[in-house]
């Protein structure tokens, strides 16, 4: 994990601009993502951080065109290899999924089909994208299993998911996502469902493969520990909007946005018995039309009248730091 400055000047692989995904419910519009923009550079790891329900996962699904039914990508662009993947025709999307963008899901327990052999599930990806024969796909799948450090890959090929532990299953998921050597790997909370000891292994594996294959990682997480290990760039998301951007070191030294501040404050400190663990008061706002102004203002200790009326723009407050908050104007 080296974070040399050259990296940030790397070529942009995926450029997302003003992405908006709305859910059209019976009588309201739920703005799950309300204008998110970011650039993902080659070989870089970009972390989307935020609490549950703030639109992190929906960002990933929007990029792959997998937004569930009442939801819809209503605006924005995502340029990858010179084309806008959000405007890609539905029938062409399969070429993108798995081949240009791989995705790892949160639950390795349920992300693998319980009745199919794991090797077969990996070789499926080759059958879809490479048009390989069964035997060739099998060879490739075993190779992939070896790459993610699964011992005895030839034997494990014939295992069913229930025979593997959570960590091993997540390795299989990684093998599946990386089978066709995608340029972008989206990890949607890849370690949330795993034991703490296994988490580190999986994260290390992702970093290792990232360096080996030179892909870019879009890491979605609420785990600040993971962020502090992995991120080249951090985007804090609240209620479907980016509220603060930072590099890794900067974020942990100083947080500008009150929400980022609260996030960092809620990291438990080992050995600190006297201090009660901080939790952000209140709940995430309902992302319906009625919300005016900054979505965080109800939970914000610094909220002013203006915060309830207008939405603050994302503005640069320090080199490499952008914040959407009126406190810094």
């Amino acid at each position, binding site marked *: 994990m080296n974070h040399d400055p050259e990296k940030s000047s790397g070529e942009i692989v995926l450029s997302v601009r003003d992405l908006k995904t709305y859910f059209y419910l019976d009588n309201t519009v739920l703005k799950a993502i309300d204008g998110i923009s970011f650039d993902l550079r080659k070989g870089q790891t970009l972390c989307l951080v935020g609490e549950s329900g703030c639109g992190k996962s929906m960002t990933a699904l929007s990029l792959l065109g997998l937004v569930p039914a009442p939801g819809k990508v209503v605006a924005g662009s995502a340029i990858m290899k010179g084309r806008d993947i959000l405007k890609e025709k539905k029938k062409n999307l399969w070429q993108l999924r798995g081949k240009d963008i791989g995705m790892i899901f949160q639950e390795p327990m349920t992300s693998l089909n319980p009745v199919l052999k794991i090797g077969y599930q990996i070789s499926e990806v080759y059958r879809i994208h490479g048009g390989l024969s069964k035997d060739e796909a099998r060879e490739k799948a075993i190779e992939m299993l070896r790459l993610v450090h699964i011992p005895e890959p030839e034997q494990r090929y014939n295992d069913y998911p229930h025979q593997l532990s959570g960590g*091993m299953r997540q390795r299989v998921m990684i093998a599946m996502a990386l089978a066709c050597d995608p340029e972008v790997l989206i990890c949607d909370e890849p370690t949330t469902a795993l034991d703490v000891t296994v988490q580190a292994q999986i994260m290390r594996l992702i970093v290792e493969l990232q360096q080996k294959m030179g892909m870019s990682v879009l890491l979605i997480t609420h785990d600040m520990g993971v962020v502090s290990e992995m991120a080249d760039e951090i985007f804090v998301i609240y209620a479907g909007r980016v509220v603060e951007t930072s590099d890794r070191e900067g974020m942990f030294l100083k947080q500008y946005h009150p929400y980022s501040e609260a996030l960092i404050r809620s990291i438990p400190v080992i050995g600190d018995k006297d201090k009660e663990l901080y939790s952000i008061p209140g709940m995430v706002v309902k992302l319906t039309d009625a919300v005016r102004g900054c979505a965080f203002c109800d939970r914000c200790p610094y909220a002013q009248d203006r915060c309830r009326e207008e939405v603050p723009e994302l503005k640069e407050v320090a080199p490499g730091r952008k914040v959407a908050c009126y406190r810094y104007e």
Partner: protein
Amino acid sequence: MNAFQSIFRRGDGMAAEQAERLAAEQSDRQAAAQNAGEAANKATGSTGANEPCQPETKGPDKSTEGFYRDAFRRLRRNPFAIVAFIIILCLVLAAIFAPLLTPYGYAEQSLKDKWAPCSGTHFFGTDNLGRDIFTRILYGARVSLSVGLIAEMIATTIGVLMGATAGYYGGKIDVIISRIIEVFASFPFMLFAITMTCVLGTGVINCFIAIGLIGWTGMARLIRGEVLRLKNMEFVEAAKANGSSGFRIITKQLVPNCLPTIIVILTMDIPGDILLESTLSFLGLGVQPPTPSWGEMISAAQLYLRQHPGYSIFPGLAIFITILAFNILGDCLRDAMDPKLRR
């Protein structure tokens, strides 16, 4: 004829009840499987970092197909299942080796021997044309079993495809297919079969097609329900994220997950199909004489019911035993695949 119709019609209420029970058991099974998996994980834990980890198999037995193996083991322990299976096996063998088991041909007439009683030469006696009833029942088994096989194959193919398509795509496609299912399910079977035979002509194959075309609705409904439940699971999402097309997801991901349901429904549907074939043949719409079929034999025997009851009793018994065997096997299969019995 009306009485026959009502006896021979599939009990729709019963089918629905069975369906519900099965669906519930299915989801239980999956949950149980998952729990078992989790427990195994806790037991084994995970070791090693990026250097190869320890192989993590559960115990010494490297059972690859845990669920089916388990089910088979339970099935083997059930004496009812064994008996039912042996009966079905005997029927299959009898149907295949009919020419070796009897010296007579199924259409071989011998008028001087007509209405011969049960004896060493004619086990079940002879009919009004002096044909050996035992021989005709053996050959009749061919029709009955192939109806179970072919008609059920047609029904299963249509049912699984329609049900999975409806369940997976949802929306308008679901509405359209569901209405088609309802139309087919509420269609009077006899009317449909008569129309079919009018269009296609009478005969064994057309009889199969008619039964297959009417019998898929139950399967379709159940598979639709199964797929509705399965399609929201994460592995479907993962498959989509890998670029799988809808068709690929249905055939490679969802249908294998529905297999236990399909197997059980199949076994339970076969007796219904055999009964329907008998009904059709009884009415003269199915198998045409001189080809023997159990239903056709009963139909021919009804004229002599008082004088020679044996002529109708033996084919009736054949139908009864076959259906009983299939029903028992289906029941045992359902029990064997019940997660609550899993150890």
